């Protein structure tokens, strides 16, 4: 079976500026894939090329096995949701949702029926006769979603659809979009700069930087097995410790650039002397005792009491290491206190220090 969407070595440059470079990606039918990156990473440009609003400078794009690189936007059968919703202000909600069907010469009665069912799906059937300006931001976004799906497009594209909403509404809409997407089973490509949004909604996340893919993986893999320091820092928070591997009488250890030595276990395959970055997530670090042979001694520098969580900044030698501990009701550690940091060997990752 053909992938729903395939980018094949797609590039786009504007003059001397390369916005997207050798972008290759396959999206399987029914998947929810997110392009994640900061502004200027090329994520929106990739989406606009798929929608047909920009022509690639090189490479091919196909939808369901059919090359669409040269196809006009209105012939691509793609539902597109913009950040600013792009609703037609001079049409009612029902007319907005009915627009793509009208453009496809669907009979009037059929349009009315499908508009009603699309609006029911997004719980807005009572607002059919209102104008977009009479709705709240979240409601407008749901109208845009209904409009983009009512004609049963092959794929649904969303460009920062929740960017204009406040935090609570954004979380509510994430659940809503995910529910609708799962109900309909439509292949979805979603663009955002918000990594939490990407992680919580997607089957696969494609992290982009400077027009290239850094890593494409399911959210859990991205978090647990980041390919490099850039990904580790971009997804969630991480202690990123640049340094190299040293071997001493068969026992391997990691020496940070700041000179702190951290004993290694289960990292047999790592060659000695390789310049790496060690990654350890703050919430995977626990406070142990000095008896533990793998413990790293450190001094607490500051304590941030956050209710559910307590954040510690500690220093092991010259190396700063952040720790997040669940507030278990015990007395928090105090600044100046000496602690022993321990973690599971699997949580201490050695990755490439640099991005692509």
């Amino acid at each position, binding site marked *: 079976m053909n992938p729903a969407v395939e980018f094949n070595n797609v590039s786009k440059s504007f003059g001397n500026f390369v916005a997207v470079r050798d972008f290759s990606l396959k999206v399987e039918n029914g998947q929810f894939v997110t392009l994640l990156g900061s502004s200027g990473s090329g994520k929106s440009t990739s989406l606009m090329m798929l*929608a*047909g*609003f920009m022509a690639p400078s090189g490479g091919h794009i196909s939808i369901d096995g059919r090359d669409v690189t040269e196809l*006009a*936007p*209105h012939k*691509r*059968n*793609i*539902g*597109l949701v*913009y950040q*600013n919703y*792009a*609703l*037609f*202000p*001079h049409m009612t909600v029902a007319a907005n949702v009915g*627009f*793509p069907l*009208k*453009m*496809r010469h669907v009979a009037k009665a059929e349009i009315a029926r499908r508009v009603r069912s699309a609006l029911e799906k997004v719980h807005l059937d009572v607002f059919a006769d209102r*104008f*977009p*300006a*009479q*709705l*709240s*931001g979240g409601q407008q976004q749901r109208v845009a979603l209904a*409009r*983009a799906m009512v*004609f049963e497009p092959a794929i649904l594209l969303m460009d920062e659809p929740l960017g*204009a909403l406040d935090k609570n509404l954004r979380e509510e809409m994430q659940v809503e979009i995910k529910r609708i997407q799962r109900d309909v089973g439509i292949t979805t490509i979603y663009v955002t700069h918000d990594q939490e949004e990407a992680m919580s909604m997607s089957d696969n996340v494609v992290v982009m930087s400077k027009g290239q893919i850094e890593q494409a993986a399911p959210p859990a893999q991205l978090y647990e097995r980041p390919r490099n320091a850039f990904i580790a820092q971009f997804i969630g928070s991480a202690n990123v410790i640049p340094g190299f591997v040293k071997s001493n009488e068969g026992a391997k250890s990691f020496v940070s650039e700041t000179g702190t030595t951290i004993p290694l276990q289960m990292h047999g395959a790592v060659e000695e002397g390789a310049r790496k970055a060690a990654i350890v997530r703050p919430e995977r670090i626990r406070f142990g005792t000095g008896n533990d042979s793998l413990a790293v001694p450190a001094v607490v520098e500051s304590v941030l009491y956050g209710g559910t969580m307590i954040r510690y900044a500690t220093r092991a030698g010259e190396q700063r290491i952040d720790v997040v501990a669940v507030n278990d009701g015990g007395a928090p550690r105090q600044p100046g206190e000496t602690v022993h940091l321990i973690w599971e060997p699997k949580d201490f990752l050695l990755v490439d220090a640099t991005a692509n």
Partner: protein
Amino acid sequence: MKMTVAENGVLASNKFKSKRAHRSLRPSAMWLVMPGVVFLAVAFVVPLLILLSQSFYDEGFTFRYFAMILASPSYLAVVWITLRMAVLATAATMLLAYPVSCYLMLAGPAMRSFIMALIIIPFWTNILVRCYAWMAILQRRGLVNTFLTDQIGLIDRPIEMVYNLPGVLIGMTHYLLPPAILILYSINHNIDLRIVGAARSLGASPSRAFRHVFLPLSMPGIRAATMLVLILSLGFFVIPALLGGLKDMTLATLINVQFTESVDWHFGAAISMVLLVMTLVGIGVYYQALSKTKGGKQP
């Protein structure tokens, strides 16, 4: 634009706007307005009222002068000629101005500045200069006719392009194009072109996206420009006088004749009243149309 909506569905931003609009001027600020108001009252409103009052007062209250206009087919013809000329010139102007204003929205900054200069330079040029320039171009032995007859021999006899209705329309359209383009552009450039892009992605061909989305959204601009151009064309005097023939007598030229040649101020005032009423009715119709289509306006 991001909108916040109050519980009852009223747009908060609109509420804010109207509150500001209704805020009354502070007393001290009134003094700043007074000189202008006094000047306008003394130099414009009072003379106008005195003049217009002469249309129905001539040693006693009378409708004699209005009866003269209504009874005479030749005067009614002038009203008709004025109206027809204004409507034709407005139609020609809008048909030419609209595509230019659309192009201005799509053009890059450098191209836009260049076109703006091309629009504004004639706008600053004196109307008499422009009329004489058109005479030189359009007359029997003018640029166009000489080119068509002598240079390429397309026609045997020169075409009559000036001192007739086409001549007046060319002059008027040329005069009206810059304000029409500027008004259309200033209102239409607020249209979010991503909305047109959305229509394209939803299956609309370029022409259907234009017809169903861009055109309706540009209607406020079209209405404003049409009305302004129509009101301007009703009062044209110089262009019909210079580029028109004897048959192309407009209300404005007729008023001029009454005041300067016939020296019949009462009759001239009556014709002025007719022109004023026609213009006011035009404005009234315009605002009526505007208020009816409020629902379709962009938020």
